């Protein structure tokens, strides 16, 4: 009886191993669906089209989860990482600071993947952390800058300013003619940081150079010890003091900023290129192409240096349930034909070779600056720590006019964040 039992048991074990073997050779089990997390400001139409095609090809459904955008987005994802509630993949702002935010040991390394063969090399330069890549570019290169209404400029006889003094004269002329010179969305907070960030490549980079930025990265240079940055903050306060912001700028909102710029009541707005698709959705592509122009913040001596925002990126949590299939979806999303779908709906300069995109007039201008070597990547994307609470610091700066105080706060938050992220040198 005992022998029969042992023999039966062995038979069962051998049989189960035999049947299990082919499954093990076939690799991980195909999931029924994959979860993709995006900020809720994302235009979903292209994603839905791309994912519908992917489902038709693979049988795997793709669920889009849109989380609140802005700083909240990163925090919500960090919380999900902390609780091991990983999405299969997610889109994120560009730059290595995202790697340090989530921890490189918790992100899937993508170095050497074939998808990068088709990426323009320059767009990866700032994205390598210790020589490795953890994110695939998603979308196009954009820009922050001075967006202006061409009709207003025409009415006051202005052209793209030749230098900072010329820029101030244009704003004063606009004011004298009854236009709002600069509309600032102080109530919405985040647009306030645009001026300082577009001023960085024009005024700060030439003074501290790439070496200065590397020192910031290693915490060997303090933000409040950069005279050029202090000068930028002072110029910002001076614009306000000269009455070049709209009346009641503290109540200014992003929506009104877009509306008044597009309809020619405001001459300029310091903005990011992400607002162009929203304007196009409201006013149409032709209207926006015809009415809205862009230029970098001019320096004291020339037209200034353009600030570029790199393409966003797709990241895959290393401990996700379906990393292989998630990576497969990343490769699919970044194929040329799917990039073409993306650019049917979005602005930006493609970073994948062979993508067909008719650039808007302002994008041609950005490209011209880039090709002339007069463009720099947004400093925030070159650093691993963050300018935490920057919009509120600037809101406070406009209340107190305390330039040194604002710089001290910015510096303190930058070092505190670096320390919290356990970055070397902090």
């Amino acid at each position, binding site marked *: 009886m005992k022998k029969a039992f042992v023999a039966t048991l062995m038979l069962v074990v051998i049989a189960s191993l035999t049947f299990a073997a082919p499954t093990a050779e076939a690799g991980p089990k195909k999931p029924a669906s994959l979860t993709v997390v995006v900020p809720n400001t994302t235009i979903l139409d292209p994603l839905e089209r791309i994912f519908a095609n992917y489902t038709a090809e693979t049988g795997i459904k793709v669920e889009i989860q849109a989380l609140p955008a802005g*700083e*909240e987005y990163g*925090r919500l994802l*960090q*919380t999900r990482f*902390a609780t091991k509630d990983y999405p299969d993949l997610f889109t994120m702002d560009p730059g290595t600071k995202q790697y*340090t*935010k989530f*921890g490189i040991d918790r992100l899937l390394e993508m170095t050497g993947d074939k998808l990068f063969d088709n990426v323009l090399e320059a767009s990866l330069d700032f994205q390598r952390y210790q020589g490795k890549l953890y994110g695939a570019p998603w979308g196009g290169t954009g820009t922050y800058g001075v967006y202006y209404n061409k009709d207003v400029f025409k009415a006051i006889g202005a052209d793209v300013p030749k230098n900072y003094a010329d820029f101030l004269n244009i704003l004063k002329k606009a004011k004298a003619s009854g236009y709002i010179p600069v509309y600032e969305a*102080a*109530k919405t*907070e985040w647009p306030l940081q645009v001026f300082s960030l577009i001023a960085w490549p024009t005024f700060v980079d030439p003074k501290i150079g790439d070496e200065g930025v590397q020192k910031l990265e290693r915490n060997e240079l303090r933000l409040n010890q950069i005279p050029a940055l202090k000068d930028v903050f002072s110029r910002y306060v001076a614009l306000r003091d000269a009455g070049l912001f709209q009346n*009641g700028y*503290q*109540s200014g909102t992003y929506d009104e900023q877009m509306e008044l710029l597009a309809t020619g009541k405001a001459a300029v707005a310091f903005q990011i290129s992400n607002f162009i698709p929203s304007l196009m959705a409201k006013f149409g592509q032709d209207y926006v192409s015809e009415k809205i122009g862009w230029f970098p913040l001019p320096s004291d001596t020339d037209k200034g240096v353009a600030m570029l925002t790199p393409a966003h990126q797709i990241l895959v949590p290393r401990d996700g349930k379906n990393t292989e299939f998630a990576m497969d979806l990343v490769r699919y999303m970044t194929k040329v034909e799917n990039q073409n779908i993306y650019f049917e709906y979005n602005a930006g300069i493609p970073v994948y070779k062979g993508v067909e995109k008719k650039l808007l007039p302002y994008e041609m201008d950005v490209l011209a600056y880039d090709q002339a070597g007069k463009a720099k990547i947004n400093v925030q994307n070159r650093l691993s720590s963050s300018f*935490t*609470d920057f919009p*509120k610091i600037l*809101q*406070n*700066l*406009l*209340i*107190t006019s305390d330039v040194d*105080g604002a710089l*001290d*706060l910015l510096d*303190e938050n930058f070092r*505190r*964040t670096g320390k*919290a*992220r*356990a970055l070397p040198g902090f």
Partner: protein
Amino acid sequence: MQRSRYPNWFLLPTILIFGFLFVIPTLTSFYYSLTDWNINRRVISFIGLENFRELFSDVKFRSTLGNTLTYSFSVTFVRNFLGLFLAILLNNAQLKGRNLFRTIIFLPYVIAPVVIGYLFTAIYNPAQGILNQSLRAFGMGFLAQDWLNDPNIALFSTIMTDVWRTTGFSMVIYLAGLQAIPHELYESAEIDGANGRWKLTNVTIPLLAPSITINVVLALIGTMKVFVMILVLTNGGPGYATEVINTYIMSTFSLGLYGSGTAANIILSFLIIVIALPVLLFLKKREVEL
């Protein structure tokens, strides 16, 4: 020997629940305030009082302390003053419709603070808000303000919103206190020739002392923990003009700085004890037995 009605072990479930859900988290929070716990670290290290040192060297945190105290003392004083005034007014049996007035004044207290916050965001709107429109309609346009975006008056606007919401609650407690005062005391005072003011200062206020104690202490504790009203109305802005300790704690936690956020929470608890306890003892001493 008197036997208790129930055996002591009946308390066990309550002690266990209270212990797990309150005592242990409270005690552990003291420990975590002394660590570098944050969202980026998987190993938590003991760092002593470093979080507290950083907080007190942070200009922003120091300004939240000032804003919190201004908010707390202002709301406590105004809502108690108004609550007492309205209670005395609506305690008059001769007043017609007093129950309706009591209900109307108490009503804001039962509405969720977040709803009131959104309501007042609309009321305070500088262009379309009913407050400025009313002021202009009554020829007082010079008083119209950007109530929530002007850093000089934003905190005042949030204070007045909270006063509007909570005065009814204070009034109800004072009304209960007033109704507990024996009428004979007033009659005796009248026979002795006392006027209204004398009765107020020598009968009403002293005998209302227990209600004053409850109202003041509850208001102090509640307002030092203010959060929703500020978050919805101003989000601590413009700049840091209306930032209070709880909104600071929220932003610290949002940044994933859990150790630092917990330390700020400990400071808030300590502040509440340091202020509320002496006030409670002082007011208790002044209470009169009926």
